[in-house]
C-alpha cells in the first residue's frame, strides 16, 4: 500500500499513536496468530519492497538497482484501528517477536477521537499517574508491648462487618413494641463485590464471580456478598439458596425488576440487601447505556426487554424530586417488597453534596446504610470527560461522612460502604484497611475483581479500556460468545477465592498489630498517618514524616 496519500487533519503516523507495535522480523514465524487475535485489527500482514542499489564504479560493472518484495507485520494507523496496547499479540506469539510499546510522548490520537462530533467514550478508570491518598496512608499503631500482641496467623479475628441499621437497644425495643419490627442487619464480609451488571459483564464472568462468592460462603465460611449491578438477576439465582449472597441493585433503568418481583413468592431465601443506585463514582451525574448490539437474546431475557434495542439508564430516577423523597420513597418501597426483612440502602457517587444525603439517611430508621463510590471507580462505558475529570475522592468523602456521624452520635449505627479505586494500584488490603480506619464499615470493589479474577489488562494509563465496544480480549465484558468463551467461569471463581483468602490474611496482618481482634477497626483513625501535611489535616489523621 502506498503511503503517498492526501492527508487529513486526522491522518496520523505510527509515531503519533499511543501504542506502537514493535515487531521483530528475525524472530517472526508468520504464523498469523497475532493478526488473528488482535481485537482492533491494529496489525496486518503487509507487502513491502526493498530497493538494493548497486552503485559502484568499476570496469565492466554498470551501476544498477534491484528490488525485493517482502512481507511484514504492519501497524494500522487509522484511529479506529489504533493499537490499544492490550498485548494479546504478545500473548499468542510463540517467538516473542511482537509487543506494543507505550509512546514516549503524549498521544496525538487524543485530539482525534471525536470524529463525527462524537465525544469519546471508553471503559476503565480515570487516568492517573500518581498513587492515591489511600496508597500513602501508613498504619502507625503497632502493638509494641502495649496492646495485646496478636498474631494474624494464629489468632482469631472477627472479620465481619454489619450491613443494616444498628439502632441503640432502647430504640430497637421501642420500635419492636410499636411496630413489631426492628431493622434487619446482616453480618457480612467487609469486602463486597460492587455492582457490575449482567450485560456489562459477560455471562461467563458473571457466573464465575457468583460461583466464587458462593464457594467462599459454602466452603470457606466467609459471608462474602456480591451486588448484581443494574441489569437484573438470572431467574435461577433468584430462586436459589445462593440468593442470600446477593445484593440486588435497582437503578434508574429498573432493568430486570419485573422478573425479580415475579420471583419474590418463589424465593427460598431473602437476598442479602437491596442497593438503590443513584450514582456511580466513575461517571457521577451520568447514566449508562447498553448499546443495542450488546442486547442479545440472553441479555434481553435477563433484563426483560426485546432483543436489539438500546437500553439507557438515565442519569436520574424519574420520579424522585428531592433527597427526602428519594430516600424515603425508595427505601419504603424496596423494604416493603420483602416484608421489611431485607436491608435497603442507597449508593451515591462521592460528591461534595454527600453529607446532605447522609443527614437524610440519619433521620430515616429504614435506611440500612450508605454506599459511596469515589472518583477512581471503574465502569464498562462512560464519556471520557466524565471519567477523567468528574467526581470526588473516596477518602475524604468517607472521612467527612464518618465524622459527621460521630457528631450525630450515630457512627456505630449507620454503616458506610466505600468504593472507587480501592486496590487500583494492587494494594487492596492496605487501601481497604485505610478506608475502614477512616470510617468505612465495608468496601466495594469492581475493577479490582476484573483484574484479579479475570486478568483484565485495562489500566489507568490508556491500556485497553475498550469494555464499551464489546471487544474485550479476555472475554470479561463482551457478549460475543467468541470472546466470552475465552473465560472459564471455574477459573474466575478460583481466582475470586484466591484473592479473598489472601485479602483476608493481609487485612489480618494489618489489624493484628493494632491489638484488635474482636471487631473491625472501623474509624480507628489514630492507627493511621500520612506524610502529606494537607492530606493529614483534611482527613484529621496524624501527619508523620
Amino acid at each position, binding site marked *: 500500500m502506498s503511503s503517498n496519500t492526501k492527508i487529513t487533519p486526522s491522518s496520523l503516523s505510527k509515531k503519533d499513536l499511543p501504542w506502537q507495535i514493535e515487531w521483530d522480523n528475525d524472530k517472526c514465524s508468520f504464523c498469523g496468530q497475532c493478526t488473528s487475535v488482535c481485537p482492533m485489527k491494529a496489525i496486518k500482514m503487509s507487502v513491502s519492497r526493498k530497493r538494493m542499489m548497486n552503485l559502484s564504479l568499476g570496469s565492466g560493472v554498470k551501476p544498477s538497482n534491484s528490488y525485493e518484495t517482502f*512481507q511484514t507485520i504492519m501497524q494500522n494507523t487509522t484511529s479506529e484501528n489504533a493499537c490499544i496496547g492490550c498485548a494479546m499479540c504478545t500473548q499468542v506469539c510463540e517467538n516473542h517477536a511482537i509487543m506494543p510499546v507505550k509512546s514516549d510522548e503524549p498521544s496525538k490520537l487524543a485530539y482525534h477521537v471525536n470524529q463525527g462530533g462524537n465525544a469519546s467514550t471508553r471503559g476503565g478508570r480515570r487516568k492517573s499517574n500518581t498513587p492515591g491518598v489511600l496508597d500513602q496512608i501508613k498504619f502507625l499503631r503497632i502493638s509494641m508491648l502495649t496492646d495485646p500482641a496478636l498474631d494474624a496467623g494464629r489468632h482469631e479475628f472477627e472479620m465481619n462487618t454489619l450491613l443494616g441499621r444498628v439502632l441503640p437497644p432502647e430504640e430497637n425495643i421501642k420500635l419492636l413494641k410499636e411496630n413489631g419490627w426492628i431493622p434487619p442487619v446482616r453480618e457480612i464480609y467487609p469486602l463486597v463485590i460492587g455492582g457490575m451488571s449482567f450485560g456489562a459483564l459477560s455471562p461467563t464472568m458473571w457466573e464465575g464471580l457468583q460461583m466464587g462468592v458462593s464457594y467462599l460462603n459454602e466452603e470457606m465460611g466467609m459471608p462474602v456478598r456480591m451486588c448484581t449491578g443494574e441489569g437484573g438477576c438470572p431467574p435461577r439465582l433468584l430462586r436459589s439458596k445462593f440468593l442470600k449472597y446477593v445484593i440486588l441493585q435497582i437503578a434508574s433503568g429498573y432493568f430486570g425488576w419485573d422478573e425479580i418481583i415475579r420471583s419474590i413468592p418463589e424465593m427460598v431465601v431473602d437476598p442479602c440487601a437491596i442497593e438503590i443506585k443513584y450514582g456511580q463514582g466513575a461517571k457521577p451525574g451520568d447514566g449508562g447505556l447498553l448499546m443495542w448490539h450488546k442486547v442479545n437474546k440472553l441479555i434481553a431475557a435477563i433484563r426483560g426487554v426485546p432483543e436489539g434495542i438500546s437500553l439507557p439508564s438515565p442519569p436520574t430516577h424519574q420520579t424522585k424530586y428531592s433527597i427526602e423523597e428519594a430516600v424515603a420513597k425508595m427505601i419504603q418501597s424496596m423494604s416493603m417488597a420483602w416484608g421489611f426483612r431485607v436491608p435497603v440502602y442507597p449508593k451515591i457517587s462521592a460528591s461534595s453534596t454527600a453529607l446532605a444525603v447522609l443527614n437524610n439517611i440519619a433521620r430515616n430508621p429504614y435506611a440500612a446504610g450508605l454506599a459511596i463510590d469515589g472518583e477512581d471507580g471503574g465502569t464498562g462505558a462512560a464519556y471520557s470527560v466524565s471519567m477523567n475529570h468528574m467526581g470526588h475522592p473516596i477518602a475524604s468523602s468517607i472521612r467527612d461522612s464518618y465524622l459527621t456521624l460521630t457528631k450525630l452520635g450515630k457512627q456505630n449505627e449507620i454503616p458506610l460502604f466505600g468504593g472507587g479505586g480501592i486496590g487500583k494500584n494492587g494494594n487492596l488490603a492496605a487501601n481497604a484497611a485505610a478506608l475502614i480506619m477512616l470510617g468505612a464499615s465495608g468496601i466495594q470493589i469492581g475493577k479490582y475483581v476484573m483484574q484479579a479474577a479475570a486478568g483484565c489488562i485495562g489500566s489507568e494509563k490508556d491500556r485497553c479500556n475498550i469494555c464499551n465496544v464489546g471487544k474485550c480480549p479476555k472475554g470479561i465484558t463482551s457478549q460475543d460468545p467468541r470472546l466470552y468463551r475465552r473465560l472459564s467461569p471455574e477459573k474466575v471463581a478460583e481466582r475470586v477465592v484466591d484473592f479473598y483468602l489472601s485479602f483476608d490474611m493481609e487485612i489480618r496482618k494489618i489489624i493484628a498489630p493494632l491489638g484488635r481482634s474482636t471487631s473491625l477497626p472501623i474509624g480507628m483513625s489514630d492507627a493511621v498517618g500520612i506524610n502529606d501535611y494537607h492530606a493529614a489535616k483534611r482527613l484529621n489523621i496524624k501527619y508523620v514524616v
Partner: protein
Amino acid sequence: MSSNQFYEISGKEEGIRLESIKLEDKIQSAVENGHRSLEINAFGQHGIGGRLWKAADEKINIKITGHPGQRIGSMGFPNTTIEVMGPASDDVGWLNTGAEITIHGNATNGVANAMAQGKVYVGGNLGSRCMTMTKRNPSFDPPELWVLGSVGDFFGEFMAGGIAVICGVSPQTPDNVLGYKPLVGMVGGKVFVRGPFNGYSKSDAKLIPLEDEDWNWLTENIQVYLEKINRPELLEKLTDRSKWQLIRSLSPQEKITVSRRTISDFRINVWDKELGNGGLIGDLTTADRSQVPLITTGNLRRSVPVWENKKYMAPCEASCPTGIPVQQRWSLIRDGLFEEAVDMSLEYTPFPSTVCGYLCPNLCMGGCTRNKSLMKPVDVKMLGKSSVTAKTPDFPKPDDRKIAIIGGGPAGISVAWQLKLAGHDATIYDASEQLGGKISKMIPKSRIPEDVLLAEINRVNDVIPHKHVEDDLTIEDINRLKKENDFVVFATGAQKPRMIPVPGKERLISTNEFLVRAKADDITPGKHVVIIGAGNVGCDVATEAHRLGSEKITLIDVQEPAAFGIERDEAEEVGAKFMWPCFTKEITEEGVLLTSGKTLKADTVVISIGDVPDISFVPESVEIERGFIKVDRNFKTSDKKIFAIGDIVKPGLLTDSIGAGRVAANRITEILAGKESEISEVKKIDINRVSLEYYNPRLDAFDDINHCGDDCASCGSCRDCGICVQACPQTAIARVDKGKDFEYTVDDNKCIACGFCAGACPCGIWDLVPNKPLG
C-alpha cells in the same frame, strides 16, 4: 564431698527472701566450689537450675523444694538434672539446651517454650502455650516434654521440633486433653496423645498411624518417665497401644497441597446441583459456553476471509466513460490470448483503435492505480492501436424492433453498434454521406492515421444501415420516425458554434467550419491567426493552421487556458502562443481588438469557445435545459420513446459519447425485453487493497503489450498467482479448477482468520469480514 549428699541452699536468709540475683550467686558459687548435688528451698526466685556450665561434664543434681519462681532450668545445660518436688510456675525449661527437669505436680503456662534439647517430665497438668516454638537441632537429640494429664490452650504453637507426650491421666480437661487450637504454625516434631481432643491445626499437622518404631520408642521411654515422676504403676495402663494417637507436622510440600474442594467439584455438586443443569443461565440458553482458546477456526473465528474476485471495478474500468474493463484485456494478454484481448474491445466500442489508440485522453490511464505510487500507468494506447485488427463480431439477425438514430457521429454509431449487437434493427439517419461525424470530418489527420480511421469506419459501415438525409430534419420528421420505430435516439451532437456578441463578429470563422475545411485543404488562413478560446479544439485549429502555412498563431482566452495533453503539446510545438486574460472588444479588419486597447493582428480569427446543439427538430415532448436535452441516467428524455446521447446532452469527450451510446442501447434493450433498469452498482475497488510493491517502480516505458500485461496490477480481478495459497500459515486456501475458470476457496476448519491472504494479495481480491454473529 560426697555427690550423694545434698548441699542445701535456702532461698531465705534470716527470714528474709533472697532476691533472685543473690540465690543465683549462691548456686553458681556452690557449683564452683565443687558441690554437685544441691537442694534448694525456693521462695519464688527466677530461673533456678539453669546455666550451670561451671560443672562442665560433671553431673549436677538439683532438688527444688518450696515455691520456685518462673523459668526453672532456663538455659539448662546437659549436665543438669532438676527435680521440683511440687508444682511449678511459668516457662519451665525455657530455652532449655539439655537439662532434664522433672516436676512432681502441675506446671503453669509456657512450659518448654523455645526448648531445644533436654527433657521436661511433668507429673500433672499444664497451662497454656506449652511446647511452643520448640526446635530440634540435628546435631542433638530432640527435646522431649512428657505430661501426665492434659495441656492448656494453644499448645505447640510454631513447634518446630521435639516430641511431646500427653498421657491423659486424670486430665484437668478430660474432654480435650490438647486444649483449644493446638499446633497452630507447627512445622516440626510430633505429639503422642492419649485421650480425647477437639482437633488441631489441620493446615499445619496431621494424624498419622502409630507405627512400630514410634510405639517402641514410646513404650521404652515411658518407663523412664513414669519412674521419674514416681508413677511406675501406670505402665500397664499407658501401654495400651489402642489408646494412643500420633500427630506430626506437615512438610512444606504437604502444606502447599492442602486441599480445599476443587471448584470443578463445587460447580458440579453444589452450584449446578442447586441451580440446575447448565448452571446460572442453563434455563435461558443452551448455547455452548465451554472455554475456547485464543486462536480459533471455523465458526469460532471473529472474522472470515472472502475471495472477492471481480466484486469491485478496477479503477481503469471505472474511469473509462465507455466502461471498457481494461484489466480484463490485460489479463487475456497475460494468458497469451492477444486476439481475444483485441476482439473483446468491440463489445464495448466500435472505435477501439481510433479512440483508445489515438484520440482518447485515456482516462483509464489517469485512473490507473499505479499512479498512486508515482509509477507509470499501463499503456492502453498500445493495446488500442493494436485493436485496428479486431475481428468484427458475428451480429445476430436483427429482430423486428426498430430504432432510428439521428446522427452518425461517435454517439450515434455507438448506440447503433450496441443495438445491432443486441439483435435489434437500428438505422442511422445522418446529413453526411459518410458516417463518423466529427471523427471523420474534423479531427486533424496529424492526430490519427487515415488508414486506421478508414478501417474502423468501414467496419461500422459494413454493419450499420445508414440513411443519408439531405434536408434538415423537422419536428414532423421526428414524429413520423417515432411512429415508424420503437425508439428514436438523438445523437446529432453540438454543431452550432457559440458566438460572442462583439462588433465584427461576422468576420469570425467557427472552429467546425475551419477544421472541416482544413481537413479538406479548402482554406488558407494566412500568416497571422488568432484563435479565441484556448481549449483543446482551439489547439487543433492552431496545429492545422500551422500545417496550412500560418506563421504566427495566438490562442487567447478570458481565463487560464483549459487545453491539456497532446493537443496542447502539439500546438506549442508549432509555436502557438497562449495569451490570457484577454477580452475581445471588436473584430476589425486588422484582427482582434482587445478591451486593453491592444490589437492582435490576424488574417483569420477562429472562434473556439464551444458549440451548442441544434435543437430545431426536437419535439416539445422532449424537455430542454439550457440549450441541451435533459436526460435521465439512462439517457432517456422526457419523451419515453426518445433517447438522447452525446454532445446534444452535454459536451464531452469521444469516449463520453460512445459510453452514452452503450448505456442508452442497454436500456432500450431492457425496455424491449420488459426489464427494469439494471444500472450496475459495482463499486470501484479501494486501491489501498492493491499491492504495487510487487512491481518494478523504476519502469519508465513498457517494452510491448506483454510487458504491460505483466505490470498491470489487475485491481480487483484475481491474477491467479497463488500468492495467497503460500501466504496462508494454515494451508487453508486452495485453488479450485473450474474448467476455463477457477476459484480460490478457504477451508474454514483450518483458517484462523489472520488475514494474511488479504495482506499478501497483489490484486486486492481477499478481504476479511466479520463472521456472522453467534448467540
